[in-house]
C-alpha cells in the first residue's frame, strides 16, 4: 500500500467500496495531509513512500515527483551524499542518531533553494523491513527573525563599543530582571553588576569628590517630578582609573505616578575631555609663561617700584630719629613721618601682592569685572615700565561702565602687553611727547571697548600682516607671543582685538568685551 504512487487518488477513493485496510489508509492519508508540518514516509532504502500536502507546499514538489525516489533529493550536501550511509548504519547497528531526537537541519526545495527546518524522525512500529516517518517544519521565518535579532544585538553592542556608550534598564517595579549592557560593564570596569549595590549608589560611591555635588543634584532631579537628568561627572573606578562620564537618564512612571523603569545611557567621554583638558592646559601654561616672561622683562622697573617706598621709609625713619633727638622737637612731624612709614610699607607690599597675583599659576576664573577698576589696579604694574622709559601714562575712563564677565588677571595681561608695546614703540620719540593713553568706552552693541594709544612710530605695513602671528616680533628680546596670546585671550572672552593708526602719529590698539548679562531682577 505504501508503494502506491497515487496516494491522492487513493485518498479521493477509486469508486470501489472502501475495505478495512483502505479505510485505515484513507484515515492515515487525511491525517498526513491535515498536518501543518511536512510528513514524509521512507522505506529502509531511503525511498519516499508518502509525501504529504504540507510537504508539497514546503518543498515545491508534487508527491508523484518524489514518491519512489531517494529521499536524499530533498537534502543539500553533505546530508545528500551521506544519508544512505546513515540508514545503512541504523539498519545494521540499530544505533539511532536522529530517531526520536529531532534536530535542526537544512533541506532543499525543488527550485534548489536551501532552507532551515526542524526534523523529527520516527520509526514505523513493527514494520519489517523498517520504515521511517519524518516530520519537517520550515523554520525559515523564525530563523530570519532570530538572525535579525542576533544581528541587531551585535550591531548595538558594536555601536556601544565604538561609541564607548553603555545603557541600562532598571525595572523599579521588579517586573523583569534589570539590564546592563556589556559596554556599561566595561566602562565601569566591572565583570558584572552586583544586584546588592544599585547603579546610582555605585556611582555616588565612585564619583570624584569635585563632582559629587553635581551628581547629587542630578540624582535629585531624576527622582523629582522632572524625572530626567543629563550630567557629566568623573568617577574613580576600583582599579584607580578616572573616567569622565556623560550620563543621561529618565524614570518612567505609571498613571498613578509610581516609578516603573529607570532607563539611561552612560557615555564615556574621557578621551574627549582629556584632549580638551590638555589643549586648555597647554594654552594656560603658555599664557602663564607669557606673564612670567613679561614680569622678567619688567624686573628692573619692578625693583624701582619697590625701591621707591623703601627709600621713603628709610628717610622718614631717619627723620624721626633726628626729630626725637632734637630738644625742640615737634611731635606732629614725628607722627606724620610714622604714618607715612606704615603707608609706604603697605605700598611696597601692594606692589609685591599685585606682582604675585599676576604671575601666580592659577585656575582661570571668570567673574564680573569693572574695566575701569581693572585699569586702576593695573596702574602700578604699568607705570613701573612707563616710568623706566620716561613715559606718561594717562587713563581716560568713561564713568559708569557695566561689568564684563572675564578673568581679571588675563585681562590685565592683555592691557599690560598692549601698554608695554606702546611704550616700546616710543623709544625714538622725544621724552616730552612720550605718552600712552588708556581709555574705556561703552559701545552701542552692548560691548565695552578698551583702547591703548601711543605716539610712537606707528606700524609698518609689512609688520601689520604678521602682527598677531606667534613668534613674530620686531623687538630684540621679544618672545613674539604677546599679541598672539592677547588676541586668543580676548577671543576666548567673546571679544575682538585690532589696531588702527592714531591721529597724527602712533598706533591705537582696541579690544572689545561683551557686557555681562544683567543679573536677574534688573
Amino acid at each position, binding site marked *: 500500500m505504501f508503494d502506491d504512487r497515487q496516494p491522492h487518488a487513493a485518498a479521493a477513493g477509486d469508486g470501489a467500496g472502501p475495505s478495512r485496510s483502505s479505510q485505515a489508509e484513507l484515515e492515515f492519508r487525511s491525517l498526513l495531509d491535515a498536518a501543518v508540518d511536512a510528513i514524509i514516509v521512507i522505506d529502509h532504502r531511503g525511498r519516499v513512500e508518502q509525501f504529504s500536502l504540507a510537504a508539497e507546499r514546503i518543498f515545491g514538489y508534487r508527491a508523484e515527483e518524489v514518491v519512489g525516489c531517494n529521499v536524499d533529493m530533498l537534502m543539500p550536501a553533505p546530508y545528500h551524499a551521506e544519508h544512505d550511509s546513515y540508514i545503512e548504519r541504523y539498519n545494521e547497528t540499530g544505533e539511532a542518531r536522529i530517531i526520536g531526537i529531532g534536530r535542526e537541519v537544512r533541506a532543499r526545495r525543488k527550485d534548489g533553494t536551501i532552507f532551515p527546518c526542524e526534523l523529527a524522525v520516527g520509526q514505523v512500529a513493527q514494520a519489517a523491513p523498517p520504515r521511517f516517518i519524518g516530520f519537517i517544519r520550515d523554520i525559515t521565518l523564525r530563523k530570519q527573525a532570530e538572525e535579525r535579532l542576533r544581528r541587531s544585538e551585535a550591531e548595538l553592542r558594536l555601536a556601544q563599543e565604538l561609541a564607548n556608550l553603555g545603557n541600562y534598564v532598571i525595572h523599579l517595579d521588579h517586573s523583569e530582571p534589570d539590564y546592563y549592557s556589556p559596554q556599561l560593564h566595561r566602562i565601569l570596569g566591572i565583570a558584572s553588576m552586583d544586584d546588592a549595590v544599585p547603579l546610582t549608589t555605585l556611582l555616588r560611591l565612585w564619583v570624584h569628590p569635585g563632582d559629587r555635588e553635581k551628581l547629587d543634584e542630578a540624582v535629585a532631579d531624576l527622582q523629582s517630578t522632572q524625572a530626567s537628568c543629563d550630567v557629566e561627572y568623573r568617577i574613580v573606578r576600583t582599579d584607580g582609573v578616572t573616567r569622565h562620564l556623560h550620563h543621561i537618564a529618565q524614570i518612567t512612571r505609571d498613571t498613578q505616578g509610581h516609578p516603573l523603569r529607570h532607563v539611561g545611557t552612560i557615555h564615556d567621554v574621557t578621551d574627549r575631555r582629556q584632549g580638551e583638558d590638555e589643549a586648555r592646559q597647554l594654552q594656560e601654561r603658555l599664557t602663564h609663561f607669557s606673564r612670567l616672561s613679561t614680569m622678567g622683562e619688567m624686573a628692573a622697573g619692578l625693583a624701582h617700584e619697590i*625701591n621707591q617706598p623703601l627709600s621713603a*621709609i*628709610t628717610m622718614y625713619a631717619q627723620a624721626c630719629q633726628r626729630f626725637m633727638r632734637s630738644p625742640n622737637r615737634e611731635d606732629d612731624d614725628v607722627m606724620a613721618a610714622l604714618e*607715612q612709614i606704615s603707608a609706604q610699607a603697605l605700598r611696597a607690599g601692594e606692589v609685591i601682592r599685585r606682582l604675585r597675583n599676576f604671575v601666580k599659576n592659577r585656575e582661570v576664573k571668570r567673574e564680573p569685572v569693572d574695566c575701569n577698576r581693572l585699569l586702576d589696579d593695573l596702574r602700578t604694574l604699568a607705570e613701573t615700565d*612707563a616710568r623706566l622709559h*620716561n613715559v*606718561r601714562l594717562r587713563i581716560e575712563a568713561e564713568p559708569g561702565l557695566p561689568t564684563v564677565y572675564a578673568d581679571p588677571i588675563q585681562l590685565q595681561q592683555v592691557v599690560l602687553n598692549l601698554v608695554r608695546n606702546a611704550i616700546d614703540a616710543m623709544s625714538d620719540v622725544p*621724552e*616730552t611727547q612720550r605718552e600712552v593713553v588708556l581709555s574705556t568706552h561703552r559701545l552701542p552693541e552692548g560691548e565695552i571697548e578698551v583702547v591703548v594709544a601711543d605716539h610712537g612710530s606707528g606700524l609698518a605695513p609689512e609688520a601689520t600682516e604678521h602682527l598677531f602671528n606667534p613668534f613674530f616680533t620686531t623687538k630684540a628680546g621679544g618672545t613674539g607671543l604677546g599679541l598672539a596670546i592677547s588676541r586668543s585671550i580676548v577671543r576666548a572672552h567673546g571679544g575682538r582685538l585690532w589696531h588702527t593708526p592714531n591721529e597724527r602719529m602712533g598706533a591705537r590698539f582696541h579690544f572689545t568685551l561683551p557686557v555681562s548679562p544683567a543679573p536677574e531682577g534688573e
Partner: protein
Amino acid sequence: MIKEIRPTVFVVDDDAAVRDSLRMLLKSVGLPVEVFESGQEFLDAERDDRPGCLVLDIRMPGMSGLELQGKLNERHSILPIIFITGHGDVPMAVEAMQAGAVDFIQKPFRDQDLLDRINQALEKDAGSRRMLAERNMIRKRLESLTPREREVLDLVVAGKANKVIAGDLNLSQRTVEIHRARVMEKMEAHSLAHLVRMVLEVERAEE
C-alpha cells in the same frame, strides 16, 4: 651788596612719598627745603638763581632729570645738582656728571650720605656765589673808572712804570700818579698785587 638769603635745598621728584620723606629729612636737620613734583614746576618757580642746591630724581615721566639739567645749563644756572638714581642707572649718572652735576646717590641711601653731599653742594654753591659776587663787585668798580683812569689801569696791570705810562699816554708823570692813586682808591686795592689779581680775575671769567 647782595641780599642775604639762606641757602635752600630744592627737591624735584615725581614720587610723592620720596619727595615728602626728603622734605621731612631735611627739615629734621634744620635745612630750608622746597619741593617740586616736576622739572617744569621747578623751572616755572624760577628758583635756579637762589643759593642752595638741587636734589633731582633722574627718572621722571615727561621731563626727566637729565632734561631739566640741560634746561638749567641753558639758563646758565650755577645751582649744584645732586642726582638721585635707582638701581642700574649708572650710565645715566655718568651722563649727568659729564653735564656738570656735583654728585649722585643711589636709592635707598643712608641719610648721612645724602646730607654730606648736600653740605658739600651748599659749600660749593656758597663759594661760587662769593666768587660771582666778588667779580660783580670788581666789575662795578671797573665801571666807575673814567676812560683815562682805565687806560692807566691797563698799563699798570701790564707792569709798566709811571714814567713809561706818562710817555705812552703823553701825560706828565705827576698826572699819571694822580690817576693811579684814584684807580687804587676806586678799586679799593690794598696793593698793586691786589689790584692785578682783581683785574685778572674778571678778565679770566670773561674769556
